[in-house]
């Protein structure tokens, strides 16, 4: 059915269809609408979930973990400071191998106090063992949330998945939303290590170095195994519902001599910049990285690379630019832009490409516009 929705409402609509047994949540701008909408679904009876309004994000994730170990499907949503308040439990969810799905509406971290889009909040959770996907439209927010449950709960993954959408730019923008009849797209959850609540047992869970080390390796093994699962899930989604997704969305890259790489809504805006540059005679293309973890391999051989990071690792650099330099051996022109919701237009992006200086880093608007 074709409706219109905000990114927040699209996530909530997908959650309703995935029908988690437990939703535990705490409101935080600009994510509040997701948990409000889910609360309404539960109140009206459209969603048969247990909704647990908790006193903090730490408790939200703890409640998802507590429910999750009994083998049921769980969901929560958060943003920015909320995500970081639950950080300890974010690690725990992955370590406990619980396929929790969480929507994170990307927002900058204070101070200065700022509620607008930035990816650093989720990037700071990149080493926790969660899979992370970043979307660039209301439709994709819905589609990715549906796929997140199937991927997380797959027997060779069993890791939590975070669906990221840009604060306000997507959370509060209204766009067409084509909902689908999911049928059996998300199979019933089966958690092989679920506890049996009818037979309460107490375990000592202190894990010695050798076992702990093996458990860490097992997370990484599943992270690697998630690559074919993600691919297969995205292909199955395309077969059933007609919308195609990949690890990286490429635009006019085949004959491109320079590619601009970005994530989230900036990755879409970059496509418009590419069209502009092509009209000027520059063979440009764009790539929108969708999955941060597992981090995709991208063939960039023979291409100049401009990376726009809406994130930063202080004392290191733009996370995507630095990551691609390490994994693909490229020397990108690294542009830091859009932090704290800084306005970045397709004209600006075209300017980054025109004025590219491989190996250098530009803080857009700070050390000079290009």
């Amino acid at each position, binding site marked *: 059915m*074709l409706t*219109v929705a905000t990114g927040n409402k699209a996530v909530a609509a997908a959650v309703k269809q995935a029908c988690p047994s437990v939703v535990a949540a705490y409101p935080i701008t*600009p994510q509040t609408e997701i948990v409000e909408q889910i609360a309404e679904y539960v109140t009206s009876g459209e969603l048969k979930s247990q909704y647990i309004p908790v006193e903090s994000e730490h408790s939200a994730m703890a409640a998802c973990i507590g429910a999750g170990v009994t083998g049921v499907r769980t969901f929560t949503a958060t943003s920015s400071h909320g995500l970081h308040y639950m950080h300890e439990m974010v690690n725990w969810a992955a370590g406990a191998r619980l396929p929790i799905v969480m929507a994170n509406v990307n927002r900058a971290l204070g101070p200065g106090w700022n*509620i*607008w889009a930035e990816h650093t909040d989720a990037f700071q959770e990149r080493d926790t063992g969660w899979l992370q996907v970043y979307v660039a*439209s209301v439709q994709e927010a819905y589609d990715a949330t549906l796929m997140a449950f199937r991927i997380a709960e797959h027997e060779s993954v069993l890791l939590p998945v975070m669906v990221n959408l*840009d604060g*306000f*730019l*997507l959370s*509060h*923008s*209204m*766009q*067409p939303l084509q909902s689908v009849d999911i049928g059996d797209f998300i199979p019933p959850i089966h958690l092989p290590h679920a506890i049996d609540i009818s037979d309460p047992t107490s375990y000592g869970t202190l894990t010695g170095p050798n076992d702990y080390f093996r458990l860490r390796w097992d997370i990484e093994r599943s992270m690697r195994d998630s690559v074919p699962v993600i691919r297969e899930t995205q292909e199955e989604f395309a077969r059933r519902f007609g919308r195609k997704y990949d690890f990286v969305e490429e635009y006019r890259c085949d004959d491109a001599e320079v590619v601009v790489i970005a994530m989230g*809504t*900036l990755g*879409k*805006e970059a*496509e*418009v910049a590419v069209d502009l540059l092509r009209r000027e005679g520059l063979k440009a293309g764009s790539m929108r990285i969708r999955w941060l973890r597992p981090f995709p391999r991208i063939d960039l051989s023979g291409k100049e690379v401009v990376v726009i990071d809406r994130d930063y690792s202080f004392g290191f650099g733009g996370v995507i630019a630095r990551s691609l330099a390490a994994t693909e051996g490229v020397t990108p022109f690294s542009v830091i832009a859009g932090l704290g919701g800084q*306005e*970045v*237009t*397709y004209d600006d992006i075209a300017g980054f490409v025109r004025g590219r200086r491989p190996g250098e880093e530009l803080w857009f608007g700070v050390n000079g516009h290009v």
Partner: protein
Amino acid sequence: MFEVRIHSRGGQGGVTAARLLALAAIRDGKYATACPFYGAERRGAAVVSYVRIDDRPIRVYSQIRHPDLVLVLDPSVMEVVDVLQGMKEGGRVLMNGSEPREMKGIPTFAVDLTGIALRERLVVAGSPILNTPVLGALAKMGIITMESAKMAIKEMFSDQRNVTAAEAAYAELIA
């Protein structure tokens, strides 16, 4: 791509006007995005929302710099905001008011949305509702069809007076 910038004051329903317009455009079979610009809003402050309408999926999320249409729900914002900033060549202005004002030679349309809302008793918490009647004026200007305007209003509001007010705005638009 057709780009609309909506100027209003916090609490006047500018965001809902943007969403209604986007919904009507989608019901016309087009693609549309309604992007409110969220600042540190409070009731009464001058605020802006954006609507983009196109025949293909919309990939632009940045703010609209060169609008095809500027919609001014509250003319008093013109004392603090240059509503004509970046106006596209051939662009138009639609203003809430009883008659069009001279706007530096830019074609200006006027409709008394406040008067229509008061007449139809469309008042919530003491504020006249402007965002449903305005769809009628936008339909008259050819930006959306009246059929889709009504459809959008009915999808978002159950009170029939919203549709009546839109019809009044359609009839009373002054070029």
